[in-house]
């Protein structure tokens, strides 16, 4: 018995040492995801992009020779849980975090800047773009926060630009604009910017309408929208509740032109909402899967290294972009004094108008500086086309192939880098 026990002890000790030796050439990257909460429908493809990217990078030598240990945790879109998880990660010695929602990212701003941990969020809230805290719109400086893509505010400005031109073309004398979204930090992030910009370009701005992030029956909200007489409405939630809203509004006969943000529209929304999603105008933060751009080759290789699916929703590409911007900054840090938080942050500032190597055409070129984290000021504005309600059993790639669903590019909005827009 004693022999057995000693043997067991020796083996476990040996394994523990082997484990720690193994851990030394691994780098822990935290990945926060909402796989079961109200934003799961868009977080799942986004997270898949990051996971596949990590698998591909690991299969091709890792980051500066180190294998990635990607720790993906589902927090169900509950900000307090995310903070608890952050504390765990911090004590585990995490180098960099890939985050998710606005509420949790904004709540963590103070923590990550104190602990010098670069935080790549999937929240594109403009509050996260002010690294020095000089903007009057931000509560505190966010020197360690980055995200790849135009902010919610800039995305909203771009689609409102389109709406203003559209109203002019249609000869609407005094068009009306309504902002719709849940009372939650994420939809609220763009509210002020969208409403003030809409007023600036000549819209009458109606009372905003609240609808839940959790999909439900939104006929009451659609009736208020119809009564308000607004021709243009901006949807600030994610695709999941967007599907219910578009369908509810179609059934009450609201003839509104819907605009939405980067998380409001994708292939799955078009399939699920059917013709109710036809004509919705939205910004894109990266190329769609299968687009004819040079970087798509790498995206397909990344897909083959990981999930190996027929098709991925648009969020997948943005997940890859977020991961690759981080990867290049980490590589720069490793070559310039070690992979510390400060150096990774500096790595983001090294180039102008840069795209991660191999992803040309997939990720839009971005520029970050120590004073201004507005990486992307140009927004690609797209429109959803849905010919008919899809057969529920048909796959998204088939629907795209036969042209039942699709998206067309309307224009590239080039927004001015106005100092007063920083953080708004």
């Amino acid at each position, binding site marked *: 018995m004693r022999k057995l026990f000693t043997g067991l002890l020796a083996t476990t000790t040996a394994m523990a040492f082997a484990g720690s030796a193994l851990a030394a050439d691994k780098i822990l990257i935290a990945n926060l995801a909402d*796989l*079961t909460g109200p934003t799961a429908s868009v977080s799942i493809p986004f997270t898949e992009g990051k996971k596949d990217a990590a698998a591909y990078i690991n299969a091709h030598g890792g980051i500066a020779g180190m294998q990635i240990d990607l720790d993906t945790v*589902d927090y169900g879109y*509950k*900000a*307090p849980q995310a*903070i*608890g998880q952050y*504390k*765990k990660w911090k*004590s*585990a010695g995490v180098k960099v975090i890939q985050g998710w929602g606005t*509420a949790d990212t*904004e*709540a963590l701003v*103070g*923590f990550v800047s104190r602990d010098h941990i670069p935080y790549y969020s999937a929240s594109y809230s403009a509050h996260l773009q002010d690294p020095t805290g000089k903007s009057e719109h931000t509560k505190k400086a966010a020197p360690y926060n980055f995200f790849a893509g135009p902010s919610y505010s800039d995305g909203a400005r771009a689609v409102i630009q389109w709406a203003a031109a559209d109203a002019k073309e249609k000869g609407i004398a005094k068009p009306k604009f309504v902002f719709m979204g849940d*009372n*939650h*930090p994420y939809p*609220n992030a763009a509210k002020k910017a969208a409403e003030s910009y809409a007023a600036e370009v000549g819209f009458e701005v109606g009372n905003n309408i609240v609808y839940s992030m959790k999909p439900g029956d939104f006929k009451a909200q659609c009736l208020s929208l119809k009564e308000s007489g607004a021709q243009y409405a901006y949807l600030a939630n994610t695709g999941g509740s967007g599907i219910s809203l578009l369908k509810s509004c179609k059934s009450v006969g609201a003839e509104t032109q819907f605009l939405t943000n980067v998380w409001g529209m994708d292939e799955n929304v078009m399939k699920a909402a059917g013709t109710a999603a036809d004509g919705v105008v939205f910004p894109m933060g990266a190329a769609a899967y299968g687009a004819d751009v040079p970087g798509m080759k790498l995206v397909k290789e990344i897909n083959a290294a990981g999930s190996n699916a027929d098709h991925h929703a648009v969020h997948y590409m943005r997940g890859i972009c977020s991961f690759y911007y981080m990867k290049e900054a980490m590589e720069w840090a490793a070559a310039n004094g070690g992979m510390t938080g400060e150096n990774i942050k500096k790595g983001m500032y090294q180039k102008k108008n840069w795209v991660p190597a191999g992803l040309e055409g997939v990720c839009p070129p971005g520029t970050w500086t120590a004073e201004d984290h507005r990486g992307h000021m140009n927004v690609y504005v797209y429109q959803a086309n849905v010919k008919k309600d899809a057969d529920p059993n048909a796959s998204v790639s088939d629907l795209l192939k036969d042209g039942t669903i699709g998206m067309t590019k309307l224009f590239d909005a080039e927004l001015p880098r106005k100092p007063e827009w920083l953080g708004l």
Partner: protein
Amino acid sequence: MAGYNMMRCGEFRTTYEKDTTIFPTPMSRNFAILGVILCIIAPLQIGDFSFISPAILTLMIQIGYMSIGALGLNILVGFTGQISLGHAAFFGFGAFASAWMNNDFAIPVFFSIPLAGVLTMAIGMIFGLPAARIKGLYLAIATLASQFILEDFFSRADWFTGGAAGALANPFELFGYVLSGDRKYYYVVLAYMVVMYIIAANLMRSRDGRAFVAVRDHYLSAEVMGINLTWYRVLSFGISSFYAGIAGALFAHYLEYVSVESFNLLLSIQFIGMIIIGGLGSVMGSLMGTAFMVLLPEVMQEAAGLITSTSWGNIAAITEGINFLKEMVIGASIVLFLIFEPDGLAHRWRMIKAYWKLYPFSY
């Protein structure tokens, strides 16, 4: 089941003092002291060596503040026989109140935590007023209203809670000395826990505590004996809210961030789950039930990790479904617990003690 103990043969209580003692035997007192000492030693770090990992430490802190909240609910449900489906809202009120007093009035956290308890007590007594007139399921629905009213208040009262964006809370501070980091904060929670548990154990030996039990066991007889039912029911709500407020404030300064999302109906139900699993009407049961409810998801997370790390478990069907599976197993284990252990963990603990006391002749 309050005051119920397995007694040794030949142990007779000859005075009231002996009958109402906190610890029935010297052994049980020594064990309690030993437990506290172990809790004090546990997070110590000697050089690079530490008894417990940071992850376990966070769980112990979580058990600490949650168990204070659960104990509060147990005073209301287990001892006084009332019901509350709004305990999470009071827990949340304490959290916001402490952060608010500290942020807006610069009251040091050391004082803002007990003050938050007092404020929450006042709110709890107001929301407890319906208990004077209604009971049972009707009271449950009335307290459910308090949950929704307060939750709505949290998401609208920007001046108090920061609205939907939530409020930041400062770390614990004692006369200019900031206790940051889990290891230090652990002692704050432990100190509060010991004090709050001693208060509760003593409360049950007092006139008011016996009045609570009388109200629970037979309210008509209690009234005949001169117990003011309205006062004691509302007082019970007040004390329970005081505990919830303290627990919430400890939670706020631990997480350093408070959001309305934390305090939904689910948390209220979880509190009820904790005291039912731990044992209604048992002070120690509150702690055991909390530990069970806090550790169960962690154990399930570990198990899920083990399954997906094996070669047969790392397939799409399992990795994608494991999150849902985890939740289902947690639910199922609670149901099984209620079927096979209806008197709670406190009862099982007494059975174990009795077994060893009489070993090997346990019959």
